[in-house]
């Protein structure tokens, strides 16, 4: 597993401190991040692949600095957003997955073969030439995952990937995430998704307030929410 390290991280938007005094070393296979809206959990997740730069402190992935070596970090860390519509670039399903490999140096045949495998793996085999905007919410999120995973990253950071989905689609996406071999950092409000996770972080008002097993953190979080 990769080692994700936060050292004395602080992040501000203007005068507002969004994250403060974050010191963490994450090496587990399944890591959950929970917290109320505006707690800073998404900012924390975005720092892992350099989408947000810390105002002070450093974030590294296997020793690579997410600010200075952002490109290398992003090759290693894939990111799944809450709204898959923002992540889909191409007009059809197969083209969007292939888009992730356009600078990979692979031949067209190899790209085609990998895309075909990916379509099968994510249950999108019958939708290769389907317009992406006509997919269901669940299918769009599966496509977003497929497009990230085809680059074979070591770490997947997923920022509330089931929030916009209905229960059926949310279950489908979460089951798929649970089966991934890759290291996963999952930001979620759905505490049931954290069952079986190795470690869960609770963020509140920009600070890490608890760090433990899913059962411990779920109890603490529910108590905090009242």
């Amino acid at each position, binding site marked *: 597993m990769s080692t994700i390290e936060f050292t004395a991280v602080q992040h501000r938007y203007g005068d507002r401190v969004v994250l403060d005094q974050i010191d963490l070393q994450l090496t587990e296979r399944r890591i959950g991040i929970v917290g109320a809206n505006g707690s800073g959990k998404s900012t924390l997740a975005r720092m892992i692949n350099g989408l947000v730069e810390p105002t002070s402190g450093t974030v590294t992935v296997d020793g690579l600095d997410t600010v200075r070596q952002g490109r290398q970090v992003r090759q290693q860390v894939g990111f799944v*957003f809450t709204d898959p519509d923002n992540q889909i670039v191409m007009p059809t399903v197969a083209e969007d997955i292939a888009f992730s490999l356009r600078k990979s140096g692979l031949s067209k045949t190899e790209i085609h073969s990998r895309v075909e495998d990916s379509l099968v793996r994510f249950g999108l085999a019958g939708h290769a030439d389907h317009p992406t905007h006509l997919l269901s919410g669940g299918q769009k999120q599966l496509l977003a995952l497929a497009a990230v995973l085809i680059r074979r990253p070591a770490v997947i950071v997923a920022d509330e990937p089931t929030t916009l989905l209905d229960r059926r689609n949310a279950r489908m996406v979460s089951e798929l995430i649970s089966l991934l071999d890759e290291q996963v950092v999952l930001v979620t409000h759905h505490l049931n998704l954290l069952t079986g996770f190795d470690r869960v972080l609770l963020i509140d008002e920009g600070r890490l307030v608890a760090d433990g097993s899913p059962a411990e953190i779920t109890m603490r979080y529910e108590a905090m929410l009242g």
Partner: protein
Amino acid sequence: MSIIGLYTPGNSVLHRMSAGSKLACMLVGMIALVALQQIWQLGLAAAVVGAGFVVAGIPGRLIWRQLRPLRWLLLLIAVLQVVLAGWVTAVMVCGGLLISLAIAALVTLTTRVTDILDVCQRLLRPLARLGVDPDRVGLVLAMTIRCIPLLTGIVDQVSQARKARGLGFSLVALVVPVVVRALRTADAMGDALIARGVDD
């Protein structure tokens, strides 16, 4: 429904033809249409394009869906041409436009967007010496096509929200939230492009 981005899978001669050849044929065909003088020549051109749709196995409803959005514009042009230049000119102008649109539709229905973008990027490569990045231009074109249904969706949602609040039609009530949401979406898409390694 968008005019573009409706690739219809198939294995016809037209589907297998390279995107570059199809785009070249489209260009030649459109130039030839301008040169036509007689209605029978226009009829022949229409028959050739019609045969193209048959060969490609494109269903009639899809052809209609491609041409339908422009029916009122064509009607307006036809009325103006009849009044100003006579019915023969009206048939030649509107027929030429309609066939041109049908040719463009035939190309987009039988060609993947990525293949069209590859051709654009190849054509732009000589401009790299002048600082033009063909990959970036290709990406912009792809994003433009992708954003059409996305923006249509935003306009639709904002219109529904306005109706749900019991408000009548107001340009401000439509434009302001649409622009705000479009900018937010653009921001989020920018993040997603970075995360997908566009700058790698």
